[in-house]
């Protein structure tokens, strides 16, 4: 399985969720700011990176975990990508798209906008980190659902 976590800019919520899934963060402990900043791509992606699908690691069920950004496409992103997969004759069954936007809080939105869009990193970064810490257990919850649903499925396929 290829599990692709996606959010607006591919910098915060998708990176956090994918990191929990890939085992880069413990799922029961809220990470510190330095732990978050050590994550690959966390608060680092810029506009030209948007749309790129980045590899984050592998889970215990051998699923490959990725992140990407989709701007304001919402659930249309998955529809578009599945349509393209269909045209390219890529197996849709091996693709899982996970939208992390429902778990994004206002602090993450404001901090992410300041840091990534406006480039005011010294102001935006602490805000987005605080927001990520507040929503962390929600991301954990999401990841656990995905792991149970698709992890076992992958084992059954093998």
């Amino acid at each position, binding site marked *: 399985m290829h599990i692709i976590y996606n959010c607006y800019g591919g910098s915060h919520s998708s990176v956090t969720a994918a990191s929990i899934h890939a085992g880069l963060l413990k799922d029961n402990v809220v990470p510190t700011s330095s732990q978050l900043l050590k994550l690959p791509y966390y608060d680092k992606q810029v506009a030209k990176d948007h*749309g790129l699908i980045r590899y984050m690691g592998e889970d215990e069920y051998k699923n490959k975990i990725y992140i990407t950004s989709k*701007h304001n*496409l919402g659930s249309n992103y*998955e529809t578009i990508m599945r*349509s*393209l997969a269909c045209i*390219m004759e890529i197996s849709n069954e091996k693709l899982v798209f996970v939208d992390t936007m429902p778990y994004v809080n206002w602090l993450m939105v404001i901090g992410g906008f300041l840091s990534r869009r406006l480039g005011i990193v010294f102001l935006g970064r602490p805000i987005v980190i605080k927001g990520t810490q507040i929503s962390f257990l929600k991301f954990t919850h999401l990841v656990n659902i995905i792991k149970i649903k698709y992890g076992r499925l992958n084992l059954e396929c093998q």
Partner: protein
Amino acid sequence: MPIVYLCSTGTYSSIVAANLHIGRIDEQCKVQDIISLPHFGEFINRTGIFLFIGEDSKGDMVYTLGTGCEAQLIKKSALDLAKIMGYQLDHTKLIDMSNYIPKYLGWFNTVFHKQRRIYFAKRLYRQLKTMDKEVRNFKEQGR
């Protein structure tokens, strides 16, 4: 080789370009010919639907796809998706035609629901020569 023309809904500039590609219309066509194209102006709020338009003279399948205002982002994602799935994207061509229609398409579709097809057909008709040139360039060099 699948050839996919992209625009925001997959039913305006991409439909015209795809039909230019397969030769159903040419640069001499009239506004009415554009309005009469199958699927022209349909699916105004359904991004992500792909439509099979036909086969070109070389036997390649020609499609259109609606990508909202994010055709460039989708092109990058498609390239990476192909890579991670071990597929050669060289076998599929994505051509962005979204610059031929304005970004206010969404609200225009909603507010001027009845007039929208005629309005955009006229607008695309005025750009037909440029579109035809782009399609011809792709057919000659892009493959």
